[in-house]
């Protein structure tokens, strides 16, 4: 069928996203949304029990919210994959899982995505070593920290730098290094062979079969 009116989606673009890649980003958002949701059930009870300490303890887990972006980038290897994946994940969390954080999560997600994506973009989506992942976690956690600090009023608190340190450490470990572990695991199972990462691995000579 030939379109007569130029639609936004079919407007000429250098390389349009294959639907397969788009759906993958959504799937990552859905799976992590669900897994967070399972963990958060336990987490809410724990943070109520801890009282004010719960407010500080959230920083230890802060990095785990970053995971979606490096995963998406490593598998799809396209510009903006991280940002789109994070935003989609936040949409699913707010709209379908009913997070009471509200739509401010969209902004936080976009900032996180940009932070996580920058180190990969700097290598032109070619390097996927431990250092790139670690930097990705660091930048993702670092950027979003200043936004959250504004939102939750951490500025001017005595604990400001304690918060920052824990937050960044969590970003590197949970939002960076853990992502690489998961990506390698996924690649070994062979489910992502049909994506960019599979072709890269094949070219490098260690395909799954």
């Amino acid at each position: 069928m030939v379109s007569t009116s130029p639609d936004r989606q079919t407007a000429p673009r250098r390389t349009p996203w294959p639907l397969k890649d788009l759906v993958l980003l959504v799937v990552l958002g859905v799976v992590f949304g669900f897994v967070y949701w399972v963990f958060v059930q336990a987490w809410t009870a724990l943070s109520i029990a801890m009282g004010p300490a719960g407010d500080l303890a959230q920083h230890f887990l802060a990095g785990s919210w970053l995971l979606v972006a490096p995963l998406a980038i490593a598998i799809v290897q396209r510009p903006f994959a991280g940002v789109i994946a994070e935003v989609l994940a936040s949409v699913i969390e707010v709209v379908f899982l009913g997070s009471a954080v509200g739509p401010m999560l969209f902004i936080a997600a976009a900032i996180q995505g940009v932070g996580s994506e920058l180190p990969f973009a700097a290598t032109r989506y070619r390097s996927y070593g431990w250092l790139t992942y670690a930097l990705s976690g660091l930048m993702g956690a670092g950027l979003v920290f200043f936004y959250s600090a504004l939102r939750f009023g951490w500025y001017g608190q005595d604990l400001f730098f304690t918060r920052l340190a824990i937050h960044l450490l969590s970003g590197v470990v949970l939002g960076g290094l853990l992502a690489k572990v998961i990506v390698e695991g996924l690649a070994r199972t062979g489910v992502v062979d049909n994506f960019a990462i599979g072709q890269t691995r094949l070219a490098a000579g260690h395909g799954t079969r």
Partner: protein
Amino acid sequence: MSAPAVGRPAGAAAVGVLARRNPTVKLGLLFVVSLVLVFILDPVTPAVLYVLALIAVAASTRIAPRALALLHLPFAAFGLGVFLVNALSRPGEVLWSAGPLRITVEGLSVGASLALRTLVIGVLAIGFIASTDGVRLMHSLHQQARLGPRVTYAVLAGYRMLQEMPREWQTIRQAHAVRAPLRPDGTLPRGATALARASFALLVISVRKGERMAQSLESRGLGLSPRTTWRPVRLSAADWLMAAGVLAVLGAVLLVSAMLGHLEGIDALFG
């Protein structure tokens, strides 16, 4: 482990005045109000807004008061934590101190403001979620916010996957149970490692499923244009009226608060 239910059951129609309003308009209003609240740091203004929001949500949705109170629990607890941490850890005029602990006037004020902000956004989010069908929202975003059809249907496919996920999760846990080395007392391993293994299996299964979904969407011609829409979501005068009403109330509260000298901006954090 029983399968947890995710969100509202599919097909359960939301009732109430708010449920008939356009989802995109509701989401936009929620966004604007949340954004404005970030720049307010005195306790009085969000307190007034909270009371107004609570009344509006209770009146325009049919959430039972008991359910509404229960839904408050997670973010009320979060708000309490925020309040206590701010009261104890913010420099300023000391009200009370014992050893390393001290409570300051500034801490109380900022803490109360942040806690109340959490409540306002929380209650509005409850109203939004209770009155909005996710599928209708995506269709509305596609029609009114010009979200591309491929993204729209990818998200909707993801939603379908999410609905099946509790069952999938249970299947994986049971499959692991069949082969897992049981603990000495004969029960299943339930620690973080077991949950992490199940989560990874869920990820692998879902990625595979996603690829099949994308193929079937494409083979059905998704992305062709021009598109027609089944069951269009309407944007009516009542929606514009609601938007104008909400913004007018927000503006009026801010104005009165400023005239009475209560309103404080973001510099309260640094002052």
